[in-house]
């Protein structure tokens, strides 16, 4: 287990935990670990109690000969990297049945059947496919207003990326491409400006500059991405979009 990997994971898990959407109610502990830059055992134990993120890390680690908190493992899950290409589809299918909480088995089966091995254990795929599968159950009232709400939800919940155009004390202005839902099709819209929060006490945000590319989760800047990560998050997000749109199109 590496400190770097734990920190990277904690940075991306922090905001949904703060909002109460995943993991135990330990936001103070995670924040403290991030600001110290030295996550203790208690932070690791907290991260191990996330109901979906941690099982995904275990899936990626055991299929690639890595430890759960090796940096490349949470990087694969949140951003995307070549480790994702090494997860055998049958293992991901089995994992989705047996290790993910509360999944509807029939929907998991339909999803994997439709995508024929193209599902990836990537956070964005999980987010988008959860909507895609959920939207069938009750025939959600998908008028324009509802599509806007769902699009905003998915956009906040996925990891997106933005180019920093202005740096405030605890706020960044970024240019980013929001994900939108229209006619049961997900797509990235044209770039627009958005204000997001960041914690200047969490490295490397104390020295973040205009032009940096940052990962975003629920209106919060998680980390500064390097060029390879920037390319990967675009690549895997577009791949996930294509797969989920195929699934949605088959059910129109």
């Amino acid at each position: 287990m590496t400190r770097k990997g734990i920190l990277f994971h904690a940075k991306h898990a922090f905001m949904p935990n703060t909002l109460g959407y995943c993991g135990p109610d330990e936001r103070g502990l995670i924040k403290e670990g991030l600001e110290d830059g030295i996550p203790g055992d208690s932070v690791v134990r907290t991260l191990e109690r996330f109901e979906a993120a941690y099982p995904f890390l275990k899936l990626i680690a055991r299929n690639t000969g890595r430890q759960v908190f090796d940096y490349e493992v949470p990087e694969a899950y949140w951003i995307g990297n070549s480790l994702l290409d090494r997860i055998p589809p049958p293992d991901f299918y089995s994992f989705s049945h047996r290790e993910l909480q509360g999944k509807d088995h029939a929907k998991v089966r339909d999803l994997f059947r439709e995508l024929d091995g193209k599902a990836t254990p990537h956070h964005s795929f999980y987010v988008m496919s959860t909507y895609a599968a959920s939207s069938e159950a009750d025939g959600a009232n998908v008028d324009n207003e509802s599509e806007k709400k769902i699009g905003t939800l998915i956009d906040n919940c996925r990891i997106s990326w933005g180019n920093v155009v202005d740096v405030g004390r605890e706020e960044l202005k970024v240019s980013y491409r929001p994900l939108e839902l229209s006619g049961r099709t997900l797509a990235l819209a044209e770039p627009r400006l958005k204000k997001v929060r960041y914690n200047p006490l969490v490295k490397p945000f104390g020295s973040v500059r205009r032009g940096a590319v940052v990962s975003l989760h629920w209106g919060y800047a998680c980390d500064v991405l390097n060029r390879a990560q920037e390319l990967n998050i675009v690549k895997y997000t577009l791949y996930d979009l294509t797969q989920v749109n195929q699934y949605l199109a088959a059910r129109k």
Partner: protein
Amino acid sequence: MCIARVGRVAQVSDGRARVDFFDGRSLGEVDVTMVKAEPGSYVEVFGNLALSKLSVSEARVRKKAWEEVTAKGGRY
């Protein structure tokens, strides 16, 4: 990340509901404008938005699957 959770609606007012997620925490506030939820309804919630309403039998199956996995993983 956020997970799709199954919860039972306790109260509804102006498109917002208080939902019990059976996790021992206080009730969560959820936007239920997309589903016809009423007290006692089971809903599937993603983030703070109810995406669908579940039948009692569907909710039982999902809740049971959830409990099995949490018991196996020793979480909660």
